[in-house]
């Protein structure tokens, strides 16, 4: 072999080495692409997780708002002149006795049912009538007959006139107003 030929061969060899460097570059680009893909997938999963949490929170907030609205309706019903003892969140038990099962008020209440109970140690439910009042703990004020209802309750002051040594005073206990709302069918 001549020296000139060798030189050419060396030069040719150098040329042949070029694709090896570009293969390395390709590998690096591939590495970077995989890394970018992994990062995108990771952030996509994280974002989806965050969205699911947010969505659950939104449903929870909507339910909470609906419940608060229902409680407000119950409070408004308790504050109507038909039930109120004159103060806010105070129901006159004597009025309740009169208002029980009155047909005239059927279209008046914006709810499916209204029940008032006395909070006491008694486990037994004793429905109030003219005969057993005040030794009872359950007033069934209104029932529309709808069976598919959801009950919402809130606390009120349940007052009645009582007598002590010929002196008449307001005796107040803790009561619960249970208001039934018709369950809305989805769709």
């Amino acid at each position, binding site marked *: 072999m001549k020296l000139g030929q060798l030189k050419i061969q060396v030069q040719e060899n150098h040329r042949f080495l070029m694709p090896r460097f570009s293969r390395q570059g390709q590998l690096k680009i591939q590495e970077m692409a995989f890394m970018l893909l992994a990062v995108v997938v*990771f952030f996509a999963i*994280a974002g989806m997780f965050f969205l699911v*949490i947010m969505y659950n929170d939104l449903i929870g907030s909507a339910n909470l708002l609906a419940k*608060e609205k229902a*409680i*407000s309706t119950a*409070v408004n019903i308790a504050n109507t002149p038909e039930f109120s003892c004159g*103060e*806010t*969140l*105070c129901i006159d038990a004597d009025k309740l006795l009169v208002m029980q099962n009155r047909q005239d008020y059927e279209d008046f209440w914006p709810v499916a049912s209204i029940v008032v109970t006395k*909070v*006491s*140690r008694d486990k037994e439910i004793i429905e109030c009538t003219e005969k057993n009042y005040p030794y009872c703990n359950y007033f069934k004020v209104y029932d529309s007959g709808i069976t598919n209802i959801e009950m919402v*309750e*809130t*606390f*009120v*002051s349940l*007052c009645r006139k009582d007598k*002590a*040594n010929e*002196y008449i*005073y*307001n*005796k*107040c*206990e*803790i*009561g619960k107003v249970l208001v039934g709302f018709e369950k809305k069918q989805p769709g």
Partner: protein
Amino acid sequence: MIKTKKKDNSRFDLKANKKIVKSKRSQNEIVGFVMIVVIVVIIGLFLLAFYLRKDTVRTESQNVENFLKASLSYTTSCKVDIEPLNIRELAKRCYEKKPCAEKDSCVLLNETFSELLEQTWKINSSRPVNYYNLNVYYREGQEGESGEIKNEEMLVLKQGNCTGAKTGAKEFFRHNMGDIFLELELCYK
């Protein structure tokens, strides 16, 4: 021999150097990657902790507030003249350290509230409420205002162990120069 040795050495050195440079680079890359992973995990944990904490943050409950409002009118067994006093009047007497027909009005307030809470928020394993804390106190003056803030504890009633979500409400009424506060905290399963 020497020539070949030299050649061998130079070749070997080059390869070794290249290997060292490569392994150093990859080590750096691995360290960077691990650091990123660690940072992301820490941020994730922080967000998760923050989100879980949000659930137990006290939310004012309308029902608890209504209970406190209704309880103020509750007729107690304390009779000063002929008419029995309600909790509002009894709390005022308790603050003024006035007795209630030879009985300590604060003891009577304690008994009345204990009975009320027991009836309303029964605490046992089958009920959703597992803890309550009622705090009745007198406060005179407000934060941010000039002058002294007077805080006087009147009654603390606690029962159960708090696990789960916390809820509560505050109610107050005017008395003398300040207010009497009723603060009730509940824990739900």
